[in-house]
């Protein structure tokens, strides 16, 4: 005990003092830029970290030689697909891996070795020097203790002498710091009274409670909505400014780190394959994997219609040590020299800190076209492309569809205390060969809309017409049967949507058997389907767990296409997939739509994907469509303040754009349906409303804005004069081009991380 504690007081003070003083910082920075910094400057320095797990298949070498130095106050982004070892790295640093894992290498925190410390010894560092924010805010707080209790607990562990009052004051201060309104009262709240975004803020508050030197954030925003993600990233940055901690940001989303990271480490198959300053990685990638990742992400700010870059294949199995470059089997540039020995991280000429693990790094300059390297397929053209929208047949029509849930209270005698308007008067139609997307935060009623359509029941409020069959006219089993042939669904989670005990053949045969098809016909059709979605026909005897996520989603798509439907309903079809795989599935959906003349109804929260694949888009907020129209128009010229905020919240994988962008950060969360406003739904969070003069506010509060065509705004009139046809864009707002409240605008143009 005494052996461990004795060196600490003498060491911890000077280092933190150096970190805080501007002189120390600039020295570290200069050394860092020159590539000369010694590990002593870094708060956290990881050398040759290796983690091995035992599994039924053998030893899995999950992390293979990770090296990095983290300087005080800096942010390191670790990027990679699932299974690339990012999270395992962070867990190894925190010492949170199970005992069965074998960890080698060295992790130095302020020059002290952390690996090999006992769990008890690690407890002194965890939460004090090293803190962590986890991915899922819903499960990382204990439900039976109040939020205040949990923050105080974090304080008590490391400051046993602190008085009770002091701890409470500090807890309230922390909650206020992460942007929770009236922090003193909220200390007494339980986690379930907080929304997901608020809980993640509480997690951040707990993490920074003891002014940690290193904050590890493991996908801190993946489980959150875009608007909330923007808020949380903001809080994270603020927390970093307050504490001066170095941050390790682990994510799969290249957009998230583009704006906030200083350095990026790209991991693949447990190994760092490219490392460097953020601009080097985004504008001058030298490793084909990084290039592919960047090309695989659709951009929300660019309307250019080109196919995404799919990285074929899947990451290698880490049970077997790769003999060559681990990316070689998927790399379009791989040559024989790539198969002999794994290339180490080497310095890229022309840059001091940029390193890439590729034998061809020198040859791959900034002017290489990624689309050529990865053979991105040409953009498929549909048969319907030439036909104007009005002349196409309507595949699906919704007229004033409503879904209200009664809200009951009381144990024995239930009484109705309100109504949840999950879907409140939706009307839209989808034409042949068209992709219609519904976007919105979770809780906006997107999925309920889909379920209402899939239910197809006579007693529904409102009319659903599918391929000419109305739910009102004939909802007997025969009509339903016919309707099922018209419309099929692809689910969000490809793993959950396939029965784990069915072979692919059985999965695909189920709808066909149900339609009464003969055995030999079924077999023929299944082979056809497998080829259609790009799977090997002889894989039909395998079980779903023998496929990768992308392949499983392909099976799900094949199942939906089995009965030759006109309309396919896609419920977040790619959100569960890795970026590189996601690109392949999106390209497949695009191709199928063109070849088979399908229509899609898609629900998605990723606006970049929507922009890429959709023709028309509807933005939903609290069960209502607030803006609908042609995708390019809505995205380039959003009129409703909610759409504007939503679009500005989406991170773009481009550091330059991210740094100079003005963000609209929405206040708070979706209001609970119980106290939904009487006038405009959006009034509680609206940045335009906040800036309006009192006189005009009244209109927003009392009247409900109808969904209207673009009206007499000057800019719109100008546009309308240019184009002869009516514009396909409607929105529900009284003051579409109103000024935004200044307090909700956030810009990092001046405080950019690389500002000199």
């Amino acid at each position: 005990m005494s052996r461990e504690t004795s060196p600490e007081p003498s060491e911890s003070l000077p280092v933190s003092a150096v970190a805080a003083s501007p002189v120390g910082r600039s020295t570290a920075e200069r050394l860092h830029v020159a590539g000369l910094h010694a590990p002593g400057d870094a708060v956290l320095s990881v050398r040759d970290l290796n983690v091995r797990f035992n599994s039924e298949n053998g030893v899995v070498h999950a992390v293979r030689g990770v090296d990095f130095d983290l300087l005080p106050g800096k942010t390191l982004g670790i990027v990679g697909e699932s299974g690339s070892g990012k999270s395992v790295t962070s867990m190894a640093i925190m010492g949170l891996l199970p005992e069965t894992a074998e960890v080698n290498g060295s992790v130095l925190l302020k020059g002290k070795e952390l690996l090999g410390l006992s769990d008890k010894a690690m407890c002194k560092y965890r939460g004090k020097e090293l803190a962590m924010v986890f991915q899922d805010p819903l499960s990382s707080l204990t439900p039976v203790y109040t939020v205040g209790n949990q923050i105080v607990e974090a304080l008590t562990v490391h400051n046993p002498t602190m008085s009770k009052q002091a701890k409470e004051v500090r807890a309230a201060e922390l909650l206020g710091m992460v942007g929770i309104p009236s922090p003193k009262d909220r200390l007494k709240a339980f986690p379930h009274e907080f929304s997901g975004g608020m809980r993640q803020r509480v997690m951040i508050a707990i993490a920074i409670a003891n002014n940690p030197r290193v904050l590890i954030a493991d996908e801190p925003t993946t489980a959150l909505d875009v608007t909330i993600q923007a808020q949380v990233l903001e809080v994270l940055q603020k927390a970093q400014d307050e504490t001066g901690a170095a941050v390790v940001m682990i994510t799969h989303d290249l957009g998230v780190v583009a704006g906030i990271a200083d350095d990026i480490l790209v991991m693949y198959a447990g190994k760092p394959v490219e490392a460097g300053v953020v601009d080097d990685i985004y504008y001058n990638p030298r490793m084909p994997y990084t290039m592919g990742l960047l090309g695989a992400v659709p951009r929300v700010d660019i309307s250019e219609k080109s196919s995404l870059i799919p990285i074929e294949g899947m990451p290698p199995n880490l049970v077997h040590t790769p003999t060559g470059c681990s990316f070689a089997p998927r790399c379009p540039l791989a040559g024989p020299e790539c198969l002999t020995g794994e290339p180490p991280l080497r310095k890229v000429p022309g840059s001091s800190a940029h390193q890439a693990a590729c034998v061809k790094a020198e040859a791959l300059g900034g002017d290489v076209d990624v689309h050529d390297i990865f053979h991105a397929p040409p953009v498929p053209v549909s048969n319907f492309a030439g036909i104007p929208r009005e002349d196409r047949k309507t595949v699906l029509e919704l007229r004033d569809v409503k879904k209200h849930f009664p809200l009951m209270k009381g144990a024995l005698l239930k009484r109705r205390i309100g109504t949840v308007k999950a879907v409140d008067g939706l009307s839209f139609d989808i034409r042949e060969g068209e992709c219609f997307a519904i976007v919105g935060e979770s809780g906006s009623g997107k999925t309920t809309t889909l379920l209402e359509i899939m239910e197809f029941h006579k007693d529904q409020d409102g009319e659903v017409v599918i391929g000419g069959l109305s739910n009102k006219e004939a909802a007997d089993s025969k009509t339903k049967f016919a309707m099922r042939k018209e419309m099929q669904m692809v689910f969000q989670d490809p793993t959950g949507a396939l029965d784990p005990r069915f072979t692919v053949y059985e999965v695909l045969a189920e709808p066909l058997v149900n339609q009464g098809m003969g055995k030999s016909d079924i077999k023929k059709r299944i082979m056809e389907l497998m080829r259609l979605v790009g799977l090997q026909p002889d894989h039909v005897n395998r079980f779903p767990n023998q496929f990768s996520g992308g392949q499983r989603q392909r099976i799900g798509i094949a199942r939906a296409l089995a009965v030759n439907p006109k309309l396919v309903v896609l419920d977040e079809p790619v959100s569960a997939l890795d970026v590189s795989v996601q690109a392949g599935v999106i390209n497949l959906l695009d191709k199928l739509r063109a070849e088979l003349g399908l229509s899609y109804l898609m629900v998605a929260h990723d606006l970049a994907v929507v922009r890429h694949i959709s023709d028309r888009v509807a933005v939903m907020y609290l069960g209502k469509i607030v803006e609908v129209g042609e995708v390019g128009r809505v995205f380039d010229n959003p009129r409703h303040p909610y759409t504007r905020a939503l679009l500005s919240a989406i991170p773009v994988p481009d550091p330059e754009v991210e740094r100079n962008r003005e963000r609209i950060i929405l206040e708070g969360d979706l209001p609970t349906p119980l106290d939904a406003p009487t006038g405009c739904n959006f009034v509680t969070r609206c940045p335009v409303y906040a800036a309006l003069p009192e006189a005009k506010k009244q209109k927003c509060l009392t009247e409900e804005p109808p969904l209207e065509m673009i009206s007499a705004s000057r800019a719109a009139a100008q546009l309308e004069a240019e184009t002869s046809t009516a514009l396909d864009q409607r929105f529900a707002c009284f003051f579409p081009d109103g000024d935004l409240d200044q307090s909700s605008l956030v810009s990092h143009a001046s405080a950019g991380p690389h500002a000199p």
Partner: protein
Amino acid sequence: MTNLNAVDPAAVAEEAHLEGHEVVINKSTIILRRFLRNKTAVAGLIVFVALTIFSFIGGFFTEWDKSKIDPFSIGMAPSSDHFFGTSQAGIDLYAQMVEGTRVSILIGLVVGLVSVLVAAVYGCTMAYFGGKVDKVMLFFLEALIMMPALLVVAVATNGGGGGSFKQALPSWLLLTIVLLVFSWMGTARLIRSMSMSLMSRDFVKAAQFMGVPARRIVWRHLVPNIGSLLVLDITRGVTAAILAEVTFSFIGIGIKVPDVSLGVLIGGATSQVQTYPWMFWVPLGAMFLLTGSLAMMNDGLRDAFDPSSSSVGKAKKKKKSTS
């Protein structure tokens, strides 16, 4: 034309990758491996199989049977003539043990298997239909749980109103039926809640949206997916049934003489523990072996099926030997 060509080579490469490296291990193989790794469970399995074999072919190793009286050796201790000794009446205990063990195992297996099957179908149906069907079926189930099983067993096996019943059926079969009626409810409730969580999984929804009829969804999607739970419940059910049989027979309301079971043997020998100890200890030991082996197996099965079990791969040992 576009994407197909782009995908195929990758898929081929992937296949080679999958097959070349044995990435995929069959789930049943994993379960078997894990089970075999648990030495206690394997021992349990061996004991249980040995007892079963003994109960079926043990009769060939002795000339005596359960009704034949040996007038020259009454109340004899175990010897080469009578392996386990004889009773007060001069009946060979070994022959009785073979018969008794067989009856006990038979009752256990039949009750264990059938009750779990009934529970699976009942529980899944309840979960699938939900609403009113669920309420009515749940009421029936709870009513059965409330019923005093002991009294019903006593009445059914002791004649009461069912005299003709008793003549038509051998007493062990009658007991089996009564045990069956009262043994499936707990499992059914468990399966109901498990299926309810399965119901919210997407593949069930997918089947519904494809228009697959309800009974096919229950049989093809729900029942197989709770298979591992069913296997565990079968071993547990077999143990419970054997114990129930022993208990009922011991207090004299289960199997009736001249039929023999472990319970009857133990019950009959309680007064003779001092005078003829083998008459008591031998069947008791057999019962312990039987239920004990099942409990040992159950432990191993749970480990094997549980995906979150701490059973690490074979790699562990390899690593130790090399390093």
